């Protein structure tokens, strides 16, 4: 019966950028978490899905990275070490790793699950390249942490304030490494363009999708995607490129809390 928020104390807070903080919790790894899975975070007023951005088996810690964008995230940013948050999960299907050479493409807060994945991949002896994209240099995330882990970072900003000036898929087009697989997370329009590039090069790729979540346990139907009807909370949030071929809404629209279609 893990589908009840467990109250966890915030053990540490890392300022990742002006708008992003990582909240660290002790975690009992008898409940296994893999990169790409998410937890539901309850601040006693609202509850939202959050990717796990740090999985540290040695210290028995996990981290979730939250960007301040609205009421819920702002309220969580107000919290201090020692404060409590409700956490249930983990939920969903995470990333799989295969081959030796991995390319990651992350946009903005989309780097969160990829950071955890990168460390896992390095630990397994893989070579990891990462396109870390953001609108502007201040919003580039986890670059130091990933460099320390041994990841080859390629930054990319819309405004050119750091690294390549332009979009992630443009930066990606310039990279000619041989990759066994790719993992992508970021705003869906970005992923849509990145997918086109990777499809062309025939690189098997996993994408992490985000949808409005209610139950997170696979019944409410809120996060189902057209046209396969897959539940992002259960069959996802990570999907292979070939699976996304059946997901007609990918890159086109999502749904709001009422179930209305919202174009990207």
């Amino acid at each position, binding site marked *: *019966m*893990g*589908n*009840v*928020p467990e*109250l966890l104390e915030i053990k540490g807070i890392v300022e990742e950028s002006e708008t992003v903080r990582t909240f660290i919790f002790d975690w009992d790894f008898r409940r296994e978490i893999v990169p790409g899975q998410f937890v*539901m975070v*309850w601040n*006693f*007023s*609202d*509850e*939202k899905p959050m990717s796990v951005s740090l999985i540290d088996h040695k210290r028995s810690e996990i981290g979730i990275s939250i960007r301040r964008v609205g009421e819920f995230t702002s309220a969580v940013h107000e919290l201090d070490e020692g404060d*409590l948050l*409700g956490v249930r999960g983990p939920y969903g299907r995470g990333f799989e790793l295969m081959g030796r050479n991995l390319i990651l493409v992350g946009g903005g807060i989309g780097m969160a699950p990829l950071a955890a994945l990168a460390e896992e991949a390095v630990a397994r002896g893989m070579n990891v390249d990462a396109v870390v994209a953001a609108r502007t240099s201040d919003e580039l995330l986890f670059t130091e942490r990933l460099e320390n882990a041994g990841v080859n970072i390629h930054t990319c900003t819309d405004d050119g304030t750091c690294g390549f000036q332009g979009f992630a898929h443009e930066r990606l087009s310039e990279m000619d490494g041989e990759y066994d697989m790719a993992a992508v997370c970021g705003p869906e329009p970005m992923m849509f363009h990145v997918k086109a590039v990777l499809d062309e090069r025939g690189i098997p790729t996993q994408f992490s999708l985000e949808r409005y*979540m*209610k*139950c*997170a*346990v*696979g*019944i*409410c*139907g*809120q996060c*189902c*995607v*057209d*046209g*396969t*009807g*897959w*539940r992002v909370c*259960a069959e996802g949030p990570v999907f292979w490129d070939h699976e996304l071929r059946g997901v007609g809404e990918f890159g086109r629209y999502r*749904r*709001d*809390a*009422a*179930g*209305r*279609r919202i174009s990207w």
Partner: protein
Amino acid sequence: MLRTRICNIELRNPTMLAAGVMGSMASSLNRVYRAGAGAVVTKSFSLEPNEGYKNPTTVEVTGGIINAIGLSNPGVEAFKEELRGVDDDVPLIASIYGSSPEEFARVAASVEDYVDMIELNVSCPHAMAGCGASIGQDAGLTFRVVSAVKDAVGVPVSTKLTPNVTDIVEIAKSAEDAGSDALTLINSLGPGMKIDIKTAKPVLSNAFGGMSGPAIKPVAVRCVYDVYRSVEIPIIGAGGVRDFRDAVEFLFAGAVAVQVGTAIMYDGPEIFMGICRGLERFMIEEGFSSVDEMVGLAHEGV
């Protein structure tokens, strides 16, 4: 062998997706049908869009969950597009709700061309004032809602009732008297609540939520059994069905079909295939040649 019919709708088997579960879009309804359900019921929708409650909307409890999603839906106009997207071969039941008999009738009339049946949700235990269980807890209001819908549409209508009443038989009879073609028994139980003991706060944002899952099965089976003795119209059983044994209990109690909802949390949509295969094996072993033969058997010799 599993083929059956309810209100002249042909079903390849007597299982249905319950309302409120994976029923917000054509894609998921189609998926559940392909996974083995005999029919699918949409998530309840209404005239106007409704965002429902803030999260948390669901929390697990012993033997199931409590939920207060709050009847979120994009409104009937947007929902029509989903109904249109459901494959032609899928027996489709629209679950609708409203705050007045007239509203129920308007919603029903505007979708009847797309569906095989309409299920009236007069029993949601966590609806806003004037909707949901506040109707289904009042025999007179139930009568008026059913009558209004029956006047407005030609497709069969099933009325879904709440167990959270002093006497469900009374409500069932008034739905029948008003012309309901079938009954769906039961909606979620309670309501119940879960309080977090570290913070002394109710976990659900709505504090209360309807209980569903295996824990409510005994109450659901009793409601079916009890109502079966007092009405002539067919009953669709719902509440805690997780395997073929549960389905058999409902059939024996008097249901002609069973809906499956919360159990999808445990076993995914593939649960329908599992229930159907188990049911078929059971029927062969026990010498039943049709679902009809099983309906109401628990009433014999009592």
